[in-house]
């Protein structure tokens, strides 16, 4: 595994600092499930690219193969066709330098380990020295606001706190890419806002690449620099929407912004169209034309670069 050397990594010797991100390319990804019975085509043809250090959200109607895409990216499932490249190397199994946060927070933490042990385990396996491990565990738990429950078991914590532990585990791993699969789908709205801000804070601080899958349109726009809108299955990219909300986001200000409202309307319409089976932007009937100037070249799913 040769990952691109991140220039900032030397600075991260004594703190969870800027670890840098890696490029993630998906070219003509296709995934067909062949279990018992008829084969099911979950993903038809996906092509997109995520630049190093970018935060990209993926939305789509339910059953749009979002989770399938994420599992392929994580190397947990082989692609049927196409190419997935992280940095310089193809993804064939769970790649080095990638951390994953799953939706089922309650089930992704080891119930027989304390919070600190959960965060520490992947580091041990990675060969991080003991003193550095202690440092990383302490700092990341403090960063997610869980410094005082390091010795508790995950099941003693609330849902939101458990998901913080999962995030701390991912951050302490010092990945170049962080994949998140609907991580906040099962926590209450208040906690959700806090966790969203936590993700943005960590993302900026670490400078890593983040792929955030969600079914919540507001969340996708609030968090992302770009939003990939997927079609219904078999999945293609319906549109690659650039989010021009600037680097600073605020739950009140940003969500009240006119641009936020415009993007929200646009993505909402796209998802509605996707639900009806629309598979290309050219076929989509959009009643609010304002969207066009923010989108990439319409009609070419997964258009290469967004200005």
């Amino acid at each position, binding site marked *: 595994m040769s990952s691109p050397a991140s220039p900032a990594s030397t600075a991260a010797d004594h703190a969870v600092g800027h670890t840098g991100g890696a490029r993630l390319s998906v070219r003509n990804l296709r995934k067909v499930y062949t279990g018992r019975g008829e084969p099911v085509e979950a993903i038809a043809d996906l092509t997109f690219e995520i630049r190093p250090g970018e935060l990209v959200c993926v939305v789509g109607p339910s059953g749009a193969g979002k989770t399938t895409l994420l599992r392929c990216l994580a*190397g947990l499932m082989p692609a049927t066709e196409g190419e997935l490249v992280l940095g310089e190397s193809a993804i064939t199994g769970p790649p080095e330098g990638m951390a994953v946060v799953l939706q*089922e927070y309650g089930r992704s933490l*080891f119930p*027989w380990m304390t919070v600190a042990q959960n965060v520490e385990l*992947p580091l041990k396996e990675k060969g991080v020295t003991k003193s550095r491990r202690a440092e990383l565990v302490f700092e990341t738990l403090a960063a997610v606001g869980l410094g005082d429950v390091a010795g508790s078991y995950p099941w*003693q914590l609330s849902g939101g706190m458990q998901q913080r532990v999962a995030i701390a585990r991912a951050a302490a791993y010092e990945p170049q890419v962080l994949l998140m699969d609907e991580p906040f789908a099962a926590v209450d709205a208040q906690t959700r806002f806090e966790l969203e801000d936590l993700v943005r804070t960590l993302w900026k601080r670490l400078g890593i690449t983040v792929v955030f899958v969600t079914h919540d349109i507001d969340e996708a726009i609030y968090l992302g620099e770009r939003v990939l809108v997927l079609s219904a299955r078999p999945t293609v990219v319906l549109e690659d929407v650039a989010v021009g909300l600037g680097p600073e986001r605020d739950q009140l200000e940003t969500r009240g912004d006119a641009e936020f409202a415009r993007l929200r309307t646009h993505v909402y319409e796209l998802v509605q169209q996707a639900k009806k089976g629309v598979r290309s932007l050219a076929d989509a009937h959009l009643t609010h034309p304002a969207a066009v100037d923010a989108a990439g070249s319409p009609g070419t799913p997964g258009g290469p670069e967004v200005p």
Partner: protein
Amino acid sequence: MSDAAKVLRSVLLTVGLPLVILVAWWVLTANSTSYFNPPLRTIVGTFGETWFAAPSGEGFGESRFVHDVVPSVLRLLSGYSVAVVVGVTLGVAIGSSRALRAYAEPVLEFFRAIPPPVMVPILMLFLGIGTSMKIVVIAIGCLWPILLNTVEGVRGLDPVLRDTARAYRLGRVATVRHLVLRGASPQIVTGARQALSVGIILMVISEMFAAKDGLGFSIVQFQRSFAIPEMWSGVILLGVVGVLLSLVFRAVTNAVLGWYLGYRQSQHGGA
């Protein structure tokens, strides 16, 4: 004050009924002249003499306790340990592979269903009637519950946890140690508990067939020589051994599965 009352109450509740039963036994058999059902007084009287006294004042080292009870328990522990190691190892291997599981399951179900005592005559053919036969009988009898429960436990591991371990690139050893064994431990302990009671039964039975020493051997000897109070004292001692072993087992379990009790409660509360 009320704390003291609480403690008193729980002590009374714990020892109350056993005391009543013992007193009733004592009183009802006090004047018993029945040959088979001697007074409890007589049984208790012979207890110390039978098990802890040396035949002719040679010291504790020659008592039945050292001569018979200790070897029995040692054989039980050896056979049981072998079963735990083999059962968990095989169980992890079989539980981790769908094909292996499908291949082995019917055969394992068959072996599990054989009442373990009928293995004694067969193993006597191969191993004679010595210590090794008894240890193997205990090991084989204890193996199936541990093996099959381990397989179930490994099979039932949460796929999300498996994915997590894979995504963080946990190696094979770390996965077995931190995920598989810990995750399957509730079922492994269930199997180990079943195995313990099977093991005690086999400890006694293997000695009843053929032996020169042992607790089960002594009890049968007493029965055959119509030493009835001594026989009863042996039955009681065997009961005490069973209870003590299950207490030790519970202590070990609580240490290993401390997390599980809390975890289950938190799930039960409706998380």
